[in-house]
């Protein structure tokens, strides 16, 4: 299996500084700008800017990992395996954070006075299943010793895993009874969200995906360094 370590550093540097500035502005805007006064939600409506981007980021991570897995199978190059793993890892991290933030938000907003931290909302449960599907990817990887074989087997599984996410997170929940907007085929997000919230929400999505990209690139660089050291030790 080849290994062509290539990371676009100038582009990464731009992204790093850009994301730090961008996310600072998103945070400031998220707290300082007005929001419509909504019953029950009150200020928690601002969670829109932080909880929802977790899922957009997980989807983005799944696209990256799926694409890199395809590249593993096509080019037989270890760099794509490293990229697929790190993208999946971050996807799981953002997914977990999305689940936890959603659970806490719901508990103190719609389930006040009850001990309900998980209400088996379709989107919530299917998202958890999506995270588990990605978790199985890592279990699979740990079961194969040979790096080449591991890369190829894992890539095949990842293609399946990343293709399930759009259905689990978006298509199916919209058809079912749900606390989330857009349930039962109702108008989804765009029709019910006040314009001023979109001013922060869309940049927040972009910002979090940018943040994912920066951390992902850092982890890929670290993986490349590790692999280069490992290969050097092999060849003496």
């Amino acid at each position, binding site marked *: 299996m080849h290994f062509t370590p290539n990371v676009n550093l100038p582009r990464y540097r731009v992204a790093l500084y850009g994301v730090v500035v961008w996310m600072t502005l998103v945070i400031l805007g998220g*707290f300082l700008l007005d929001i419509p006064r909504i019953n029950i939600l009150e200020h928690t409506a601002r969670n829109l800017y932080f909880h929802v981007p977790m899922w957009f980021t997980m989807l983005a991570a799944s696209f990256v990992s799926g694409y890199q897995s395809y590249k593993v199978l096509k080019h037989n190059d270890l760099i794509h395996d490293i990229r697929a793993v790190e993208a999946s890892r971050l996807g799981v991290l953002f997914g977990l954070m999305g689940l936890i933030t959603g659970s806490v938000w719901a508990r103190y907003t719609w389930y006040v006075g009850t001990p309900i931290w998980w209400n088996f909302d379709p989107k919530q449960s299917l998202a958890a299943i999506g995270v588990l599907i990605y978790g199985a990817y890592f279990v699979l990887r740990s079961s194969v010793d040979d790096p080449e074989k591991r890369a190829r087997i894992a890539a095949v599984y990842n293609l399946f895993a990343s293709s399930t996410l759009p259905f689990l997170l978006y298509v199916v929940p919209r058809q079912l009874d749900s606390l989330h907007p857009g349930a039962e085929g109702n108008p989804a997000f765009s029709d019910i969200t006040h314009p001023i919230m979109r001013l922060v929400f869309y940049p927040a999505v972009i910002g979090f995906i940018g943040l994912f990209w920066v951390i992902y690139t*850092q982890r890929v660089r670290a993986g490349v360094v590790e692999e280069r050291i490992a290969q050097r030790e092999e060849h003496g």
Partner: protein
Amino acid sequence: MTIHPILQETPQEAGQTGDGAIHTAYDSTWATAQIPEQGPLGSEQYMLAEDKLFVVLAVVLIIWAGLALYLFRTDRKLARLERALEERS
């Protein structure tokens, strides 16, 4: 020494909700004592407004600053490692 001494609960105070608040022995003195006459001054004028939302903002900004610092530190560490690897080969 405690700045806010623990209150002696009287039977009628315990659990009473006159203004909707819950009174317990560990309540801040603000719950039962005199409300200060003059309004907040200086930075408090800003931070205490909007149901103390800006306190949350401050917390989030501090966390974010820490994360950004971590990102920059990792970046520098990686650059150092990559440089060391280049020099070796």
